[in-house]
């Protein structure tokens, strides 16, 4: 489908020592369509981050394909395949279709508004970049955080800032790694609702990894990941009618 991210039959393993390998992903297939939120529920150390890194094209799977809008992102030849792919797709280097975010302290301790604007200056003039950053922060309801530093933010604000950083680059698919782990009940609800409405409004595909089923409540589809195996709701499940005894009368 146009603008959807697809993983097909993806295998990934890491070497452990000389003789052993750890299987992280075993025959994982997954599609994220525009406008939907897919939540991957897994316990610690079950490959959530690896799955997102593979989806973002930061890690090359041992087997299987990762594609965006039908294009295999590893098949184009060149020195830096992923960058070539990104440039070809949108023309501007900073505007990449797939963006992975996680709430982590930035390397330079500057106000978060500037932190978001900085990478955007590769493609835009400074004033434009700052405006884009401000707009992104407004969109996630964290406009007042622009002048503050990472260390002064609450966990809920950090999650919003991370999302703002993602959408400031105008992606088609947003990958969100472990955003809700540190959040309480109310913040989890608000942040997941925010992702839900961002996906719907922008036609953005969102893949979010979570450690707790409470953070899946506002996702359109749920997947579970353990021992390398991914269980996923199919995209178009026959909906169970809420009132099975009520039938539609023709013309009624």
């Amino acid at each position, binding site marked *: 489908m146009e603008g959807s991210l697809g993983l097909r039959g993806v295998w990934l393993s890491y070497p452990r020592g000389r003789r052993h390998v750890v299987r992280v992903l075993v025959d994982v297939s997954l599609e994220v369509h525009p406008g939907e939120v897919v939540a991957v529920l897994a*316990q610690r150390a079950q490959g959530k981050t690896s799955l997102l890194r593979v989806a973002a094209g930061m890690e090359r799977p041992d087997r299987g394909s990762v594609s965006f809008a039908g294009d295999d992102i590893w098949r184009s030849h060149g020195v830096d395949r992923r960058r070539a792919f990104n440039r070809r797709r949108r023309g501007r280097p900073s505007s990449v279709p797939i963006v992975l975010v996680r709430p982590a302290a930035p390397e330079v301790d500057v106000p978060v508004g500037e932190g978001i604007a900085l990478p955007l200056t590769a493609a835009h003039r400074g004033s434009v970049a700052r405006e884009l950053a401000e707009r992104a922060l407004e969109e996630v309801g964290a406009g007042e955080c622009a002048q503050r530093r990472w260390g002064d933010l609450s966990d809920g604000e950090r999650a919003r800032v991370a999302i703002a950083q993602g959408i400031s680059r105008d992606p088609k698919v947003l990958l969100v790694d472990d955003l809700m782990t540190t959040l309480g*009940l109310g913040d989890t609800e608000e942040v997941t609702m925010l992702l839900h409405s961002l996906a719907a409004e922008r036609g953005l595909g969102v893949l979010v990894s979570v450690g*707790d089923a409470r953070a899946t409540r506002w996702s359109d589809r749920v997947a579970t990941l353990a021992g390398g195996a991914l269980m996923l709701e199919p995209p178009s499940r026959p909906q169970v009618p*809420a009132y099975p005894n009520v039938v539609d009368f023709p013309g009624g």
Partner: protein
Amino acid sequence: MASTVQQSEMSAGEIVLGLLIEQPDTCYHLDKRIAERLGSAQFSRGAASRAVERLLERKLVRPADVEARPELRVVGGRKKTVYETTPSGVDHFERWLRASTQTPPVREELHAKIALWGSAELPRLIEIVREAELACTLQLGDANREMRAERQMSEASDWERTMQLIVSAGEATWWDARIKWLQSVRMYLEREHARRQAQAGPQRRRAPAR
């Protein structure tokens, strides 16, 4: 306590069926085997004979023909009936093994299944736990959609929204616990399977040389 016993009584029939599929046996020995394999299930003594009576009525088990199969004969003591499963009994057991995967799995029942599963068939047991996992994942998705539909319909006050949030978190946590338990069970079984294969591997390779 009462509920535990009732729970156990419910699946005693299937447990007896499973044990009889493994090995035709007398009621006395069935009781012993239940205690060995499912000690934690707290079956009362005599549970096996009651279960066998019910299974006889439903024609799922029958007395084995000891004359034709002398290896089943119990040596010594007074004469005891040895029971075996009928083909429909085997069918029923197989159906039971699969049945609970579509509903939220009851832990006791899955415990019983794991206890009865022959080690040779570990891959199939893993598959069933996998099915249960997928069923739970799908049901969590359905529960999420229902929750959202309710939320979008209602014109709730602040306090009602708070209550909805708490109820929603409770429901999600319930699914969370089930899914994670199933995940851990499956991963354990998969490790166990890999370990047994590794053990069996060298022997199999050595076999042709002999």
